[in-house]
């Protein structure tokens, strides 16, 4: 066997690829293709997907779209050109995910920087601390967060003890944002840390020797060099946020809707697989386009300094 591999390196490559490729094809590409087919199907009398094939599921998403440019401050600053039930929902989901990604980045960067600057022997400990939450199921942690934010929960109890007025947190858009940031923080910290750990700090010294102030050194030298970490972290945060379901459900209390929730309902409560598949595929396309555009623009950024 080994000899065979030695003689035919391409065979070895194929053998190494096989488990991953098999996994990807069997559990990602084939289901995705099935979903693609279902998204063009109609429903039979029992509601199951069935021919004839149609574009109606996609058209239904845009059925009520009308041109109506608007700027609103409702639930965060939003600018819209068109209006419609599901189009709004897509837009709102992308917007909320973008905000959550920016907040996550702003919180994660100092943390990752701190970790990377720790003496080597403490770094693994810090890394370990970041990963501890993964030991508990996300659903359970979200319930714990729900408990924290309740009117009579620890946060409000503390506020009352300090003589301050309690604040309504649970089931608000703020709670959803908090849940998204909380859930995604480790996914932002880890790639940032990886980039920052490799960062050569003498570069900053060099920049400063050449007359850069602290901000310029950060903006023109450090940020471009750690941008792969920023890009990876942002995509790992943004993409799951757009489709988030549990957080929206448990933290939003039905007051904040995102597309992931509506898609889940198409499958779980009315078993409308064709429409749910169409929405899910459209979301995938939109998110992929957004991620690719972001990736491209950041590569441009890297090129400018090299």
């Amino acid at each position: 066997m080994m000899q065979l591999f030695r003689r035919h390196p391409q065979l070895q490559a194929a053998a190494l690829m096989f488990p991953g490729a098999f996994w990807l094809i069997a559990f990602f590409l084939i289901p995705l293709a099935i979903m693609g087919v279902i998204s063009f199907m109609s429903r039979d009398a029992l509601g199951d997907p069935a021919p004839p094939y149609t574009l109606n599921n996609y058209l239904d998403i845009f059925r009520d779209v009308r041109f109506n440019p608007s700027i609103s401050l409702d639930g965060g600053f939003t600018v819209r050109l068109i209006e419609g039930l599901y189009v709004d929902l897509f837009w709102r989901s992308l917007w909320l995910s973008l905000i959550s990604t920016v907040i996550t980045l702003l919180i994660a960067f100092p943390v990752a920087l701190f970790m990377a600057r720790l003496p080597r022997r403490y770094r693994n400990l810090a890394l370990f601390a970041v990963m501890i939450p993964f030991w508990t199921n996300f659903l359970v942690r979200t319930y714990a967060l729900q408990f924290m934010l309740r009117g009579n929960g620890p946060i409000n109890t503390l506020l009352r003890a300090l003589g301050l007025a309690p604040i309504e947190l649970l089931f608000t858009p703020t709670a959803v944002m908090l849940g998204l940031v909380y859930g995604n923080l480790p996914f932002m910290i880890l790639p940032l840390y990886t980039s920052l750990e490799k960062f050569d700090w003498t570069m900053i010294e060099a920049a400063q020797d050449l007359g850069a102030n602290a901000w310029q050194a950060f903006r023109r030298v450090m940020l471009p060099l750690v941008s792969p970490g920023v890009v990876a972290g942002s995509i790992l945060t943004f993409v799951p946020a757009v489709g988030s379901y549990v957080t929206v459900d448990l933290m939003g209390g039905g007051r904040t809707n995102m597309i992931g929730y509506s898609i889940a309902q198409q499958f779980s409560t009315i078993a409308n697989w064709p429409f749910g598949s169409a929405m899910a595929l459209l979301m995938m396309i939109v998110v992929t386009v957004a991620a690719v555009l972001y990736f491209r623009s950041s590569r441009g950024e890297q090129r400018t300094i090299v």
Partner: protein
Amino acid sequence: MNRRRFLQFSAGLGGMSALIAACGSTSQSPNVSSTQPAASAPSDQKLAKTLNWYNWGNYVADSILQKFKEEFGVTVNVDTYSSNEEMEAKFKAGGNPGYDLITPSDYMVSKMAAAGLLEKLDFNNIPNYALIDPSLKNTYFDPTNEYSVAYNWGTTGFAYNKNKVPEPITSWKQVIEWPAELRGKLGMLDDVRELLAVGLRVLGYSGNSSSPAEINAARDLLIELKRRANYTLTDSPTAGANLVAGDVVGTMIYTPEAVTAREQNPDIVYVIPGDVSTIWQDNLCIPKGAPSKYTAEVFINFLCRPDIAAENANEIGLATPCAEAIKQGLIDEALIKDKTVYPDVAAMGNALEFLRKGDPAVDELFQRAFDEIRSA
């Protein structure tokens, strides 16, 4: 519909759905009791060692599974689901994964029977079926009593903290007219049909309306209420937890969670609003391709035995369909006297209505209206 003990669990531990395992000593010879059907047991009528029940979360008393194991030597394994559609999907996608028994709600029985997903029951093996309340037979979802045996039933009503609302709430109309001072303190159920049914009924329509105009009118009413009252939309266990914690002062809720909430805070009152509320019934059915149909039927018969039915109903706090258990006075007095747990169905008449879900086109109308409410 999530079930009662799920709430206790989620309130305490954070909502993991527990998998009940009927454990016990392994080698126990079947103990033929008087309740076992007296059949001259042909070869296919031998009890299996295990029975796989796909049931709602925490929807059976553990003690009963233990007793079945002791009397019949059959271990009942329970897997749980949290929606009828979740359960249905398991049987649609590639056939029965190995379950002997399921507990679909009313409309799902007819839907699955129509799709050929249910076995016809052999009532020779279920003599205790005679003890079931006749009013729970010949239902719209199983008119000829071929596929289902009633397991539990309840209602969708309203629970509130009597010290925190200005006046007692007895109607859905009062809920729709929720006072602006209590903004943010109202809870509604995150269930398409249940939520829209409230709007439909207050407008004088049936919760089973299929008219787009009526459904849209109900939607507008609920959007208007959302703007004024900023209600939450949650599942029933969360609604109960919110009520107990004081995050809402009144909420739409199913019977079992209301009973639990009431136990946790005596100021909580549960009412079945008279301007039409939903009645629902969960049923024991055997899915097509069940590995041990006979054993499942013996178990159904066991669940219909008055002492067992009573023990189960007292534990999970739901109305038992076993009329004989009620007649023999086996139900906890506090429960049986409670008109919200054992409503007088005959007296309430048209004030109780089953929600007949499952027509794809109508479901789509409702779902879109619901998405519009959620996004408003």
